[in-house]
């Protein structure tokens, strides 16, 4: 059918179609995978061996410290002293077990701690509702997380005497409770505020644009630690003598505004990626500015910047540790104060405390990161372009 090299032909007509055939069979299985991914060349092989060597060096001592030699039960420092127990002692988990209530609630009054537990429960319900993509009534869920939960949570923790809930001053709040409150407030406030700022920065109205640019650039130009010090030390100087703002509230607002400025720039990046045709299409159908933003532009823009948003949430979650510097008893601060307890003066107590803190932060941050990956993959599958 095809012309040979000697017979030059300028014309050709197909008489039979070529049927679609399966691709050539490739070697598969774990061995083939390892060869392709771990030992594909001398450089790659070297890296694989190097990684294995590092693991071999790091894993056994870590396992010995965290699990094998660790002490899990005990009432005081004697349980974790090698000279008393007569063998080398790894992590002193007994210390964490004994102090766990302090790590979770700080100095929150013991008889009122059920309120913190209810708060954790409400938070879990809200987060689960919002994060579960197929959950029923997700609009109601958003209302719950952004409006009902903050109000109910505050009333619950701070107390409403009229409802029989005794007042608990924020000075007594502490531990993971404060860390979660600060991060949740930062996250819940920074996303909507950041979206508004991003839209404002792209506004046609010069005044709105100017205000948003100044706000964003101010907060981005100041270190968080400065913001916290200013909130704690300088703010009272500017306010009239009889006005006091709660000492937990001050850094809370500072963190929320600080992260809103970063969020605004992330969201703006997403807005810029949406072609102008989208707003024009929406406008030509008669949708108003807010409708076209809410229904057309933002759903696409936010989807693009999910990695950036989550990155910002993770950074915010870890940055909440800075509030310990201005005298808030967050989780890190409770570990700091527990580790100097003379009842628990043992060689590995300090390391154990920090290891526990690292574990706590890692679980939350890794969880956020994995969830974001899952969302990205699901949205990509739902909307193949």
């Amino acid at each position: 059918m095809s012309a040979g090299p000697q017979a030059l032909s300028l014309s050709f007509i197909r008489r039979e179609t070529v049927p679609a055939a399966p691709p050539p069979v490739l070697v598969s299985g774990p061995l083939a995978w390892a060869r392709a991914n771990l030992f594909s060349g001398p450089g790659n092989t070297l890296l694989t061996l190097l990684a294995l060597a590092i693991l071999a060096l790091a894993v056994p001592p870590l396992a010995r410290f965290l699990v094998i030699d660790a002490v899990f039960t005990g009432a005081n420092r004697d349980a974790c002293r090698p000279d008393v127990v007569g063998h080398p002692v790894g992590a002193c988990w007994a210390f964490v077990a004994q102090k766990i209530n302090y790590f979770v609630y700080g100095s929150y009054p013991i008889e009122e701690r059920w309120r913190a537990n209810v708060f954790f429960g409400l938070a879990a319900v809200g987060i689960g509702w919002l994060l579960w993509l197929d959950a029923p009534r997700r609009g109601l869920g958003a209302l719950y997380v952004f409006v009902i939960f903050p109000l109910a949570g505050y009333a619950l923790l701070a107390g409403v005497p009229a409802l029989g809930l005794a007042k608990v001053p924020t000075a007594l709040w502490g531990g993971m409770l404060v860390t979660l409150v600060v991060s949740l407030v930062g996250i819940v406030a920074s996303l909507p505020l950041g979206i508004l700022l991003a839209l404002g920065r792209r506004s046609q109205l010069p005044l709105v644009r100017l205000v948003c640019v100044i706000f964003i650039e101010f907060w981005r130009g100041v270190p968080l630690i400065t913001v916290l010090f200013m909130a704690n030390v300088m703010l009272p100087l500017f306010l009239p003598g009889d006005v006091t703002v709660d000492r937990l509230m001050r850094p809370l607002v500072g963190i929320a505004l600080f992260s809103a400025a970063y969020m605004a720039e992330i969201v703006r990046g997403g807005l810029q990626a949406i072609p102008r045709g989208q707003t024009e299409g929406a406008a030509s159908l008669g949708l108003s500015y807010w409708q076209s933003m809410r229904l057309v532009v933002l759903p696409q823009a936010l989807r693009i910047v999910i990695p950036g948003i989550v990155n910002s949430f993770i950074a915010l979650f870890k940055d909440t540790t800075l509030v310990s510097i201005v005298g808030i008893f967050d989780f890190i601060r409770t570990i700091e104060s527990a580790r100097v307890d003379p009842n628990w003066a043992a060689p590995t107590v300090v390391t154990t405390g920090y290891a526990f803190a690292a574990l706590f932060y890692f679980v939350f941050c890794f969880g956020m990161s994995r969830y974001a990956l899952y969302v990205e993959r699901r949205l990509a599958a739902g909307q193949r372009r």
Partner: protein
Amino acid sequence: MTASNLPETDPELAPADTSAARLAEAPVAVTLERVNKWYGAFHVLRDVDLTVRRGERIVICGPSGSGKSTLIRCINRLEEHQAGRINVDGIELTNDLKRIDEIRREVGMVFQHFNLFPHLTVLENCTLAPIWVKKMPKAEAEAVAMRYLTRVKIPNQAHKYPGQLSGGQQQRVAIARSLCMSPKIMLFDEPTSALDPEMVKEVLDTMVGLADEGMTMLVVTHEMGFARQVADRVIFMDEGQIVEVNTPDAFFRAPRHERTKLFLSQILH
């Protein structure tokens, strides 16, 4: 160049000279009076005067940069004109946002690059505006959308996303999406320019069908076959001005302006 895309001509279709009689009594749909627009110092629209009657089909052509897209985009205020008056269906176009919204509800638009919403299904694309702008109940909006999707011959794609459709199908969805708002006037901004050659005909067929039903249409296009078959008037623009207006028959047979002759000689080989 475009003859192959021409839908089969219906011999029953009224020839151009009777359209003058048909349109003589029709009410005015759009008027433009001495409309001027500048991009910075660049004068894009210069003293444009135009009256479009209800049911009239106008094709606007001209070289790129001649202002034809800008002209129709001024009619639904995607672009702002700086001097002159535009009146759409009795509503004077001013900076008043309420009037702009009113006009946009009357005027549908189809874009060169479809501008479908990629995060919504075809059906959701069609129901979005009826639900949010017209406050139509969802079930009713979906019924309306399915009717128009059936009309553009893609009801079975309703639950797919735009990115899963061919260019021609996407453009037909865009037409259906506009029709769901029951506009009185339809603007087409080079609706077939971004399409593969094989898909031009299906879109033009849809537009011919729309014209047959008496829709008022302003179409910016280089599909001269379409202009010949459907248009009541062909407008030729150059350098922001209307250079020549005529019935398609006279326009193609005997162009009068030198610029028109040059343009036609370049596009009709």
